[in-house]
C-alpha cells in the first residue's frame, strides 16, 4: 500500500485521485504507526517549507520517515515542497529541513521574471532512470513554485529546468525521489511517473526486500 501523507491544507486528495485512476492502491495517512507499515510513501507539498516541517513534526512523522525511508529503504516520492524539505535548509522562513539530501533551497530572484513560477515548464532528464521510464528525454510538467533546490551533489539531479537560473526540477538518490513540479497535475506524463513509482515499489516487494 502506498501512503500519501495528509497534512490537511495540502493537495493530498489530488494525488489519491491520480493514483486511483491508475488503479494503484493508496491511502491518506497522518498517523505514525500507519505510516510505518507503508510499502511506499508520497509526500505531496503545498504551502511553505516551514508549514510542511511543522506539520510533519506535530504529527510525529519525522522519525518514522527516517526509519522506513532512510534505514529500511522504502521508496519515497516528494512533490513540490515535498522536494524542498528533503534538503538541509530553505530560505523560505529560514527553515531547517530534513537533511536527507545536502543542499539549500533558494528564492527565485529578479532574473526569473514573475514569481511564483506558475505553468508548464520543460524538464530535461539527465540520465535514464526507472522513475521516468517511457518518457521522452525532455518533457513538460506543471510547476507552481517561488523557491528551488540547489543540491550540493550534482549526481542527485535527475531533471533540470530553467526559470532564470537553471535549477534542479527532479532529484533521485537511492530510494529517495522528488519532483519540484506537480506530478499529479501534469497530465499523462505525470501519471506515467506515478505509475513508474508504483512499479518501483512493487518490484521491491517482489524481490522480498521488505523488512
Amino acid at each position, binding site marked *: 500500500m502506498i501512503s500519501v501523507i495528509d497534512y490537511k491544507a495540502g493537495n493530498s*486528495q489530488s494525488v489519491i485521485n491520480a493514483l486511483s*485512476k491508475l488503479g494503484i492502491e493508496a491511502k491518506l495517512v497522518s498517523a505514525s504507526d500507519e505510516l510505518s507499515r507503508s510499502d511506499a510513501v508520497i509526500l505531496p507539498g503545498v504551502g511553505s517549507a516551514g508549514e510542511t516541517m511543522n506539520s510533519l513534526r506535530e504529527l510525529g512523522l519525522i522519525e518514522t520517515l527516517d526509519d522506513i525511508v532512510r534505514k529500511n529503504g522504502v521508496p519515497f516520492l516528494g512533490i513540490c515542497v515535498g522536494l524542498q524539505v528533503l534538503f538541509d535548509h530553505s530560505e523560505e522562513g529560514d527553515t531547517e529541513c530534513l537533511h536527507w539530501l545536502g543542499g539549500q533551497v533558494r528564492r527565485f530572484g529578479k532574473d526569473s521574471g514573475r514569481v511564483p513560477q506558475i*505553468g508548464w515548464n520543460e524538464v530535461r532528464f539527465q540520465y535514464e532512470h526507472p522513475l521516468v521510464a517511457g518518457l521522452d528525454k525532455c518533457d513538460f510538467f506543471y510547476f507552481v513554485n517561488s523557491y528551488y533546490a540547489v543540491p550540493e551533489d550534482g549526481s542527485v539531479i535527475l531533471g533540470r529546468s*530553467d*526559470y532564470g537560473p537553471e535549477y534542479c526540477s527532479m532529484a533521485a538518490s537511492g530510494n529517495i525521489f522528488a519532483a519540484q513540479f506537480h506530478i499529479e*497535475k501534469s497530465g*499523462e506524463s505525470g501519471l506515467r511517473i506515478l505509475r513508474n513509482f508504483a512499479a518501483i515499489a512493487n518490484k521491491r516487494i517482489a524481490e522480498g526486500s521488505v523488512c
Partner: protein
Amino acid sequence: MLTKRLIACFDIKNGMVTKAQRFQDNIEIDPAEKVALRVYEEQIDEVIFYDITASSEKRCIDLDTVKRVAKLIYIPFTVGGGIKTLDDMYSVLKSGAEKISIDSMAVRNPELIREGSLAFGRQCIVLSMQVKKVPVTDKIKSGYEIAIDGARVMTGMDAVEWAKRGEGLGAGEICVNSIDRDGTMSGYDLDITAMICDAVNIPVIASGGAGEPEHLEDVFNKTQSSAAIISSLLYSPRMDRNYSVRELKEYLQGRGVHVRPWKDTVGNK
C-alpha cells in the same frame, strides 16, 4: 523556459457547461464532465470552472460537479463562484480543485485574499476581475473600472489599482476579464491586459474575447500575459467553427509563441 498557458474556461449552471455573451444569454452546451474530459484529452494546459449562479442564488458552489470533474482531469483545476469564506475555499480544495478564483467577494471583502493566501498559499488564490472601459477620470486613471456581480454593478474602483492591491494582499495570479469583449469573439482587450501585466509581478491571465487563433497570438506577443482563457474557440455553437487544442497550439508554435507542444504518444511508450 516556462510556456504560455491555454486555459479552458467553463461557465457551469446545474452541472451543465453554458456559454454567455457579455455575461448574459447563457446557452447550455454539454455536461461539465463531458466537456472537461474532452479538453483534457486534447491536452489543454489548465481548466477553470465558474459556478455562475452560485453567487446570485446565494448558495455554495456545486461541489458534486467539482468532485466528479476532479476525478477525470489531471491538470490544474481552478474553481470560482460564490466563495465567501475560508471554509468555502477549503471545501473546494478538498473536492479536488487546487486553485480558487475570487471576484465580487474579494471586492466586498479584500481581506478574503489575505486570509486565503495565508491559509492555503498564494498559489491557490486567483484574483479574477471584471473590467470595463470607462472615460479616464481622477479616480479611474487607467480608464478601466472594476465591476462585480456578473458585470451588473460598477464599483468606482480603478482596475490597475485593484490589481496592485490584490497582489499586495497575497493573490497568486490575476485574471483580467474584459466585460466589453466577453463572448464577442473580437479579441482580448490588449490595453488593460498590458497595463496590469506592467503593474504587477505575479502571473496575469487574459480573458474575454478570443474568437480567432490570431487573438491568442496577439495577447501573447503584444502583452506579458502568462496565460489566456479560451472558451468560444473550443466549444461555442455560436462560432462558425471550433478549434481543437492541437490546432491552436500548432498555430501559436508557428508564430513564435512558446507553448507546451501537443504530443500524440504522451506517457504511453
